[in-house]
C-alpha cells in the first residue's frame, strides 16, 4: 500500500528526515515511536503533502501512484487521512459545511454525485455515535473552543466520515482521558476494514493495548533506527530510548577518536 524509500525532507532549510525507508502492506498497523523532535510528525506531514515541508530526496508510492506528485487534497481523496497532533480551529466554518465539502469532494473524486442532505445528516448522526461525540460539538465551527480531548475525538469522527484506507494517527491518544481513549480506539477498530492500514504515532503503550500493531518502528534523528514486533513498544515504555541510542553514540565517539 505505502512504500517510502530513502526519504529526505527539510523544513525552513533544515534537514529533518535523513533517509527514511518504510513499507506498509494492506491491512498492516505500524506503530511509530521516538523521542520528541525526532521527526515523526514531519514524516506524517510529508506523507499527506504539507507544503511547508520540502522533500529533497527519495520517493513515496501509494497504491502504485507517485504520492509526491499529488496535491494534498488528491492524496486525501485517494484514501489517506491524518489525525493531526494539534488540530487547529477554523472559526466561522461550521462542522457541517466543512464535512459536507470534504465528503462531497471525495465523492466527486470517485465519480459520484453529491450526497443528499438527508443522507448526509443521518451519516453524521451515525458516525457521531460511533465515537460518542456530543451533538453540540457538531453544531459549532470546526474545533472552535473545543478542549484538547474534544479535538482528538473530532479527528476520529472526521476519519469515520471519510472512511480512509490509510490512516495516520499522530499522538491521537495524548490529551484523551482513559474513557475517551477506549472509546476512540474502539471506534477506530470498528471502522477498520481488513485492508485498512495505519501508522500510529504514540509515546505510550496504552493505545497499543487496544490497537495491536503488527510492527513497531523507532525513529530517532530523522532515521528509522530499530524495527520490531509489538514487544518493542513495551520495552520502550519500560526502558526509554537510551539503550537504542547507545550504539550510535559509541560509534560517533569512536569515529572522533580515530
Amino acid at each position, binding site marked *: 500500500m505505502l512504500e517510502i524509500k530513502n526519504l529526505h525532507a527539510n523544513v525552513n532549510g533544515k534537514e529533518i528526515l535523513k533517509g527514511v525507508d518504510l513499507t506498509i502492506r494492506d491491512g498492516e498497523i505500524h506503530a511509530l515511536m521516538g523521542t520528541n523532535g525526532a521527526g515523526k510528525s514531519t514524516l506524517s506531514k510529508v506523507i*499527506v*503533502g*504539507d*507544503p*511547508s515541508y520540502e522533500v529533497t530526496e527519495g520517493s513515496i508510492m501509494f497504491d502504485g501512484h507517485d504520492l509526491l506528485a499529488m*496535491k*494534498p*487534497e488528491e492524496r*486525501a*481523496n485517494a484514501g489517506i*487521512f*491524518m489525525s*493531526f497532533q494539534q*488540530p*487547529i480551529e*477554523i*472559526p*466561522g*466554518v461550521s462542522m457541517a*459545511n*466543512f*464535512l459536507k*465539502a*470534504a465528503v462531497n*469532494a*471525495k465523492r466527486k*473524486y470517485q465519480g459520484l454525485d453529491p450526497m443528499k442532505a438527508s443522507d448526509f445528516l443521518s451519516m453524521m448522526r451515525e458516525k457521531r455515535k460511533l465515537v460518542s461525540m456530543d451533538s453540540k460539538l457538531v453544531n459549532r*465551527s*470546526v474545533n472552535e473552543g473545543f478542549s484538547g480531548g474534544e479535538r482528538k475525538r473530532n479527528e476520529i469522527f*472526521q476519519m469515520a466520515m*471519510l472512511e480512509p484506507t490509510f490512516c495516520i494517527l499522530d499522538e491521537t491518544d495524548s490529551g484523551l482521558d482513559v474513557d475517551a481513549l477506549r472509546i476512540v480506539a474502539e471506534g477506530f477498530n470498528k471502522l477498520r476494514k481488513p485492508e485498512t492500514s495505519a501508522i500510529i504515532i504514540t509515546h505510550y503503550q496504552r493505545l497499543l493495548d487496544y490497537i495491536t500493531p503488527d510492527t513497531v518502528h523507532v525513529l530517532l534523528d530523522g532515521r528509522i533506527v530499530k524495527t520490531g514486533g509489538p514487544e518493542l513498544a513495551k520495552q520502550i515504555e519500560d526502558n526509554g530510548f537510551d539503550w537504542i541510542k547507545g550504539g550510535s553514540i559509541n560509534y560517533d565517539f569512536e569515529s572522533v577518536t580515530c
Partner: protein
Amino acid sequence: MSEQQYIEFYSECRDMIMSKSTAVMNNERDKAFELFKQYGFPSQKVERYKYTDVDKAFAPNYGILFTPLGIAPSSYIFSLKDAPKDMTAYYNRLADTSDGITLLNTMLAHECLLIYVPKNTKVEKPINVDNWIRGAVPSMMNRRLLVVLESGADATVIVGDHATDQQAFLTTQVVEVFCHDNSRLDLYEIEETTPGMNRFSNVYIHTENDCNVRHSCITLHNGTTRNLCDVSMEGQYTEVTLNGCAIASATQHIDNNTLIRHIAPNCTSNELYKYVVDEQAVGAFAGKILVEKDAQKTSSQETNNNLCASPEARMYSQPMLEIYADDVKCAHGSTVGVMDETALFYMRQRGIPEEQARMLLKNAFMGQVIDQISYEPLRSKLYVKVEKRFLGELEKCKTCNLCK
C-alpha cells in the same frame, strides 16, 4: 482639471435642470455652483480622499442622465416635488458644503427621493429603493436621497445599487438622514454593480436623543467605489452602529471613509468594517471617531479587520480616535491578515480542493459582519450572496428582471 467640463455643463444647462426640478432643490443650486468653482474636486492631497483618484473617475465625457424617478405609490416614499410637507428645513442642511462631490451633486441632481416617516409611525415592512443605471454610452447619474424620521418613527430602508451593461458609469449620491428623538432606523446600502461603475456616495446622518441607528454598507461587486459616511450625534442616549462588508477582486477598488462625531454625552457607537481583497484589488478604510468636549460618558468601539487573499491585493487601514472629553470609554483596532495557511492545509488534508478551502475561509471571515445584520430575511439572503460572490457567481445578478 476635470471640473471644467462640469462647470461648462452647468452654465449651459442650468435652466433645463431647474425646469425639471423643484424650488427646494433649485434654491441650493447656484450656491453650490459658486462653491464648486472655488473648491473643485478633492485631490488625493486632501486627507479624506487620499485613497481614491477622484479626478480620474470624473475625467471621461459622460452623458448626464436626467431619468425621472419611478416611484410606486407608497405612504412613505415620495419625490421631493410631491413631499407631504415643506422640506426646506431638511434639504441640503446636513450635506458638507466643502466637499466637491456633494457640491456637484447639489448642482446637478434634478430629483430627490424622500423617505418620510411621520411621528410615532412604525413601518412594518422594509422600504426598498432600487437604483439602476443603464446606458449604451458612458453615462452619469446624480442621485439624491432624503430620509426624515420624525420622533418615535421606526423604519428599515434597503437601498440597492445595480448596473447592468458593461459600460463606463459614474454615479454620485448624496444621502441626508434626519433621525429625530426616539426614532429607530436600520439603513442598508448594497452595491452589486459592474467593473465599469464609479460610485461616489456621501451619506450624512444626524441623530437626536434616544435614537437607535444602524447603517450597513455592503459592497458585493463593483468597479471603483468611494463611500463616505458622516454621523453627527447631537442628542443624548443614542446608539449608532456602522457595519461594512467590502469584497473586492480583479482590479476593483473600495474606499470607505467614516466619521462619527460624538457631540452630546451618554452615547454609544459601534463600528465594524471587514474587507476581503483578492487578486489585484485595492481596499481602503479610514474611520475616525471624534469625541467632542461635552460628549462625556461616550462609549465607542471601532474595528476594521481585513483579509488580503492574494499577494498582489492591497489594503490601507486607518482607524482614528480623537478625544476631547475626559470621561469616555473608547477603543479602536485594525488587523490586516493573509489566508491562514494551516487552516487551508487542514481542509485540504480532508480532501477539500484548495480553491474551495479558500472560499470557505473568506466566507467565514465575512460571516462575522453579516451576522450583525438585524433584518433576518436580508441576513439570510446575504449569506447566500456573499458565498456566491466568493464562488464568482455574482458577476451578473440573477435576481433582477433586467438581467434575465
